[in-house]
């Protein structure tokens, strides 16, 4: 079974803190993704990565950065946390997206981040 793990289920941080959310997948997937999920807004893509040290902006990258130093690990960084970043953060992974079959994304359990 594919397994995507996230470092914390619940996290409480103060405004202005630097926050690291870690994601690890064990299926040797090339692609990794970070989403946030808010009531009424659905899942929104923050950043994604097709390979080690590569990153692409998603729909809402402002206020976030990412790091992918190893294939299995993708980190989301909130440089200076703000209250409007309170949300559920979901990491996902999938095999390489090429011209061949399309592969589903597998999600982690999520991190509920509260910024006070």
């Amino acid at each position, binding site marked *: 079974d594919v397994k995507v793990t996230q470092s914390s289920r619940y996290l409480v941080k103060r405004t202005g803190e630097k926050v690291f959310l870690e994601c690890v997948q064990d299926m040797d997937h090339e692609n990794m993704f970070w989403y946030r999920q808010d009531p009424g807004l*659905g899942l929104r*893509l923050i950043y*994604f990565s097709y390979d080690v040290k590569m990153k692409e902006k998603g729909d809402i990258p402002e206020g976030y950065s990412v790091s992918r130093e190893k294939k299995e690990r993708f980190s989301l960084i909130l440089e200076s946390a703000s209250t409007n970043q309170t949300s559920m953060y979901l990491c996902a992974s999938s095999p390489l997206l090429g011209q061949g079959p*399309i592969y589903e*994304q597998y*999600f982690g359990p*999520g991190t*509920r981040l509260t910024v006070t």
Partner: protein
Amino acid sequence: EDQVTQSPEALRLQEGESSSLNCSYTVSGLRGLFWYRQDPGKGPEFLFTLYSAGEEKEKERLKATLTKKESFLHITAPKPEDSATYLCAVQAATPLVFGKGTRLSVIA
């Protein structure tokens, strides 16, 4: 711009009362459509991938179908454990675009 619209937003069914959830999409060059189930406080769980119009997939009480403009998730004789939010997503040239989901409640 790729768009996915799910309806209804919420659906309440009695146990055993069959129904369908709708996912309408506008996308250039659909490569795949995905259905996920999400329980409260958890990450989405993959259910189905559909690749072309006319395709159908089944899993227990769930059946997903695809046309050129929409997909349906049919739930036959649902049970309380089918209560969850069901998400639809489409894949074209860019990463997945998700709908906002349908929140299904099945009452015993």
